[in-house]
């Protein structure tokens, strides 16, 4: 697993208040008991950790798929790659 994936999973585990082992890639965020507040807090923590901007505002997820932990990791990997380019 990539360093990015590890960091995202750790953030999700902290914000969902679950064990890291429970955070698997195909799991929808809601299945971890995350409500909308937990999701926005997770987005903020990820932005801080990677110094990226996840384009989510006013509940509009837009082109970014954040439906599962795996989707979130791929989105972050894409944004980190864009930043590096």
């Amino acid at each position, binding site marked *: 697993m990539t360093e990015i994936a590890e960091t995202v999973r750790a953030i999700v585990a902290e914000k969902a208040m679950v064990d890291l082992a429970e955070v698997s890639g195909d799991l929808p965020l809601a299945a971890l008991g995350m409500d909308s*507040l937990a999701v*926005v*807090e997770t987005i*903020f923590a990820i932005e801080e950790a990677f110094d990226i901007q996840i384009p989510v505002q006013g509940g509009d997820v837009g082109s970014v798929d954040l439906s599962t932990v795996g989707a979130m990791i791929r989105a972050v990997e894409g944004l980190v790659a864009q930043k590096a380019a």
Partner: protein
Amino acid sequence: MARVVITGSGAVTSLGRDAAQTMAAMAAGRVGIGALDIRDADRLIAPIGAQVKAWAPETMFTVREISLYDRATQFAVEAARQAVAQAGLDLPGEMAARAGVVLGTAGGGLGTTDDNYRAVYEERKDRVHPFTVPRLMHSAAVSHLSMIHGLRGPAFTVSTACASANHAMGLAFQMVRSGAAPVMLTGGAEAMLTFGGIKAWEGLRVMARSGCRPFSLNREGMVMGEGAAVLVFEDRDHALARGAKILAEVVGFAMASDAGDIVMPKQEGAEAVMRAALADAGMDPGAVGYINAHGTGTQANDRIESAAIRAVFGAAVPPVSSTKSMHGHCIGATGAVELLACLLALKDGILPPTMGWEAADPDCLEDVIPNAARRAEVEVVLSNAFAFGGLNAALVLRRA
């Protein structure tokens, strides 16, 4: 009209982690003022305060709660938990639908504001934590108390600077007395001991550098404190029916405005609110056995409050003290912390002292219970709060 009693009390102050500890410290004359442990304290002119030390929210709240609770809200949540537990409240559905909460705060989530201003202005960050707004809003603590305790009746925050908690408790009293609510959680919470919060006060040149000495000739100003106190105000019949222990009865309240100056207090306004609170209680000044003064330790307040008390009570001024000398000026929460001093007087027959008093000021009251608590059986007490901007609120309590 319903009679209104107090059946629960909780607190987090520099003097203790609950109401009992806080009251015991007041009885012992312990001073909670010391060197401030905050970021950039070395840039403060007067780096002292009555701080809640070794506060460890991570041991009391979940990660989610901490992300939503400013320090002021944390104090309020913990104080309310204690108050509800002491009251033994278990509100049935239809009762909870009418029960409510009204708290005072002058600054709301100031720590949150301070931290996020630093982030965007000083650290040049372009994003702040997503819960910045729900943390800093003045009404945050009230909302959390309503959610935690299932209170679905009137819930709102009162902000009248240093009189906030007295106004809040007075409104709670009126709502229970009128029958609008059977039970109200009430009091105040403040956490203004932030770098920005103290700097703002320093600007006014009213902060003491060495200590708080209310009514003393050599007093040099106020010392800020922080904390929360929450009380359960309850319809007496409701309390008796469920066998609750009654701590004291609230018998009178008044609010009155100076319509004078944005910072200087006015003797007429202070007099008017004390007279009106006693009239609301149906009592003469002679009934009062102890006054918890606003007593900030500033030149102006202590002189003018003394003159107002002399005018109302004439030749028979009861013992008066300022417990701010111990717990500091807790700003929007101070009236609620001072209500604990009133409970100490009524319940335990202990009049808390004015600590730090060193020399008589002819312009101030003669008997301010200097430097040591005193035993006295008192039936009735008066608690004053006089805010900047001339917003005055006074409560009258009677022994249960």
